[in-house]
């Protein structure tokens, strides 16, 4: 009985805020299933970024399995039972579309390291909702701009049939301006033979496709196997050709044009420090933009925690995040009126390195200091 009491009081003591290591940060992310490596990148990037900021923190990581219902359940537990005031980590827009409103209703703050669906960027913008990555559309507007700059006028655009897929095709078409044939694929589809046949039939000048994670690997492999890689050029946004996808696809990816807001060859101190820290911590896994965005998110949250002294005063923490006093690994970074980033976009080429493996090489800046089209609808 005595021992039971001792261990019970020990448990209570551990649960007391005073005993905690640092501010608890809830990380809801996708760690299982085909897109599991995206969540892994985000979790690791957050941890490295927060470490670099010198803040005192503790990450509570949970897997949402890419399922909005699971995401909401986890958020509910974190917000109401564990008293966490700051959430982050979501990979997919369908999950964030469900979890973010829940978080904001509870008076907590959400900082997105990735997903930024259009509904939350415009009229539904919120003082406690921040996005460090990009707004979904602007990610793909860069690809539209690149395809236009390369002189193409007809395109086939493919994306999975969910919010981020719709945002992708809308964003691409907006800046491309030419004739776009839209094809929506299944969210869990892994065989794209039917789509390959349709592309061949349409014979466009350029193909744009948005398939993050394992889907992107399958798509590129099958594009090559169908003999389309040499004949119809492809322009991609960063999630469709991340370092992991390229490593998996191999030399077949050489020659593809991409657009990105960050690449590992960026010549600034913050980026170099991050690349070095990642290579030491995770030598087996290449750093992708997911990891980079999460690292920036970690830097931002860390700077705000340092300034506000933890999450005791949520308003002070919110103001400190809004101030965005951190040095981004992408060079220029600022929050627009809807607290989504205003940043530069770059054209990249996929070239063969000495061993013949594909590597991403930054070419030129194609868009400078752009926010997103929904910011105008945001009244805060």
């Amino acid at each position, binding site marked *: 009985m005595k021992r039971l009491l001792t261990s019970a009081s020990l448990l209570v003591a551990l649960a007391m805020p005073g005993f905690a290591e640092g501010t608890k940060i809830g990380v809801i992310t996708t*760690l*299982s*299933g*085909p897109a*599991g*490596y995206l969540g*892994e990148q985000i979790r690791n990037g957050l941890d490295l970024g927060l470490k670099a900021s010198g803040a005192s923190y503790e990450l509570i990581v949970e897997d949402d399995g890419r399922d909005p219902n699971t995401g909401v359940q986890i958020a509910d537990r974190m917000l109401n039972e564990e008293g966490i005031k700051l959430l982050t980590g979501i990979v997919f827009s369908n999950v964030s579309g469900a979890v973010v409103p829940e978080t904001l209703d509870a008076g907590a703050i959400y900082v997105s390291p990735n997903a930024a669906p259009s509904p939350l960027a415009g009229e539904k913008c919120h003082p406690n909702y921040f996005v460090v990555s990009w707004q979904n559309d602007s990610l793909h507007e860069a690809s539209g701009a690149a395809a236009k700059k390369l002189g193409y006028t007809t395109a086939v655009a493919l994306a999975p*049939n969910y919010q981020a897929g*719709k945002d992708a095709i809308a964003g691409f078409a907006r800046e491309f301006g030419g004739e776009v044939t*839209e*094809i*929506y*694929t*299944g969210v*869990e589809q*892994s*065989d794209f*033979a*039917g789509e390959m*046949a*349709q592309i*061949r*039939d349409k014979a466009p000048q350029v193909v744009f496709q948005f398939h993050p*994670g*394992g*889907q992107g*690997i*399958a798509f590129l*492999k*099958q594009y090559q*196997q*169908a*003999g389309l890689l040499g004949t119809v050029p492809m322009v991609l946004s960063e999630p469709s050709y991340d370092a*992991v996808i390229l*490593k*998996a*696809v*191999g030399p077949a990816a050489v020659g593809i044009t991409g657009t990105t807001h960050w690449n590992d060859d960026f010549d600034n101190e913050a980026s170099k420090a991050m690349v070095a820290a990642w290579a030491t911590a995770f030598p*087996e*896994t290449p750093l992708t933009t997911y990891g980079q965005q999460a690292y920036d998110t970690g830097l931002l949250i860390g700077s705000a925690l340092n300034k506000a002294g933890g999450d005791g005063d949520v308003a002070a923490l919110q103001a400190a995040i809004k101030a965005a006093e951190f040095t981004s690994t992408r060079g220029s970074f600022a929050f627009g009126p809807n607290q989504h980033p205003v940043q530069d976009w770059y054209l990249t080429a996929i070239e063969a390195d000495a061993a013949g493996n594909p590597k991403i090489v930054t070419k030129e800046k194609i868009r400078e200091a752009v926010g997103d089209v929904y910011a105008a609808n945001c009244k805060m």
Partner: protein
Amino acid sequence: MILLIEQLLNGLQYGVTLFLLAAGLTLIFGIMGVINLAHGALYMVGAFAATWVAIQTGSFWAGLVSGLLASAIAGIVVELGVMRRLYARDHLDQVLATFALILIFNQSTVLIFGRQPLFTSVPEIFAGSVQILPGLPYPTYRLFVIAVGLAVAVGLYLLINKTRIGMLVRAGASNRQMVRALGVNIQGLYTAVFALGALLAGLAGVMASPIVSVQVGMGDEIILATFVVVVIGGVGSVKGAFVAAILLGMFDTMLRAFLPRMLQEIMPGPEAQALGVGLSSMGIYLMMALVLLVRPRGLFAAHG
């Protein structure tokens, strides 16, 4: 016209992959009366083993053999360790236990291989494409998959209809108790059938591995369609599984390829796309509902 032929081939290829999975599932379901949700996990085991060995040795064929071995061994271990305890229990217990197996297989794969997808190339002789018709190059590897699937179908037909073990399998599928009463070593038969089913699932995984990305959870995506095939074909019938798999593969591919386009003729672009994609992902389930309405036991029910 060329598009139609290409889509028919795609449908056929999807169909034979479904058949490889469904043949094992329907036998296990029909003979042992066990709902094995973890059948997709065996598909994943085959794909991972084959890809890993192919990466290590640089040979697709070494990968093929190891993939088949690994999935068959996994099947035997699952049968001896878990399934055996489930035969006498009701379907809910079986669903629960085999669902747990999915989670165990998935997480073990994460522990061993990590979350990064694996990748192999198609074997050298099947790289590139064949000009089937002028203007229609088709990937050689996909033709190889179709050929393997059809060969397995013929092999299974011979095994089940012309051999002694096949006779026991057929007897077991139509009346389990009677086979046992006649003194057949039913335990041995169960293990053999389960291993065969696992081997076929592994083969499907090996065949798919150079096409799709080999990743944790890959089996969970295809197993739903496989269950639909089993139900449409009739539980326990390999012939039914074959007919239903080819039908469903074709139907699903055709719907996805042509429905959005046809809808675009009568309504504006994005809505037609959304509706088309939605309807075509429902297609196979509608087909199942229709078949069950007309033939509640499936097309070729094995049970008397």
